[in-house]
């Protein structure tokens, strides 16, 4: 079946502009995660959703970052007034449910964001 998809695959924007990144999880997966991966770094947790609610927003770097999920499916990560330090690959993952014995997360290919 289809995996996690993300769009756009690449986004180049100017400093100060807003961007929206989209994630389509695997059908039926109730949990959805956003991570950020800077060059040569590991994954930095941003936010997760269980259904449409986001119990843990602790990883969002600043109030310029927000995310929503509608219909328990598609999620959008929005970055307002982008800064150069926001340049990174933004990865989305989904899993069957939060808190399962082992929460196997399936990752999308990521959106590579470049802020000029």
């Amino acid at each position, binding site marked *: 079946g289809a995996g996690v998809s993300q769009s756009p695959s690449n986004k180049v924007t100017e400093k100060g502009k807003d961007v929206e990144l989209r994630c389509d999880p695997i059908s039926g997966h109730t949990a959805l995660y956003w991570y950020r991966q800077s060059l040569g*770094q590991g994954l930095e947790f941003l936010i997760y959703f269980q259904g449409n609610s986001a119990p843990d927003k602790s990883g969002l770097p600043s109030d310029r970052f927000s995310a929503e999920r509608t219909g328990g499916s598609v999620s959008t990560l929005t970055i307002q007034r982008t800064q150069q330090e926001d340049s990174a690959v933004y990865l989305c993952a989904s899993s069957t449910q939060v808190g399962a014995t082992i*929460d*196997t997360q399936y990752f999308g290919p990521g959106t590579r964001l470049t802020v000029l």
Partner: protein
Amino acid sequence: QKEVEQDPGPLSVPEGAIVSLNCTYSNSAFQYFMWYRQYSRKGPELLMYTYSSGNKEDGRFTAQVDKSSKYISLFIRDSQPSDSATYLCAMSALYGNAGKSTFGDGTTLTVKP
């Protein structure tokens, strides 16, 4: 100090070599230990996971966890050029922590034919 530290590499080995990838951690709440493989410009894919201490083998891959030392390893036997990728360790606490994983920074492995 980061919760999870991973040997940075890069690592370059000849085909057929045994590879050892390692991570240490500081959070004693971690119970689930995972290894992901990430090819260039792709998302990570789960290779193996283990729960608590012990070894787990899957083909050419062996994951080892030593909770007393807060140290985990991934061994790759008979390494192949197709194993060339970045390997990320990840850990999470018990149920109730939302399965949120804490990742190491990754080790880039190149296996030369």
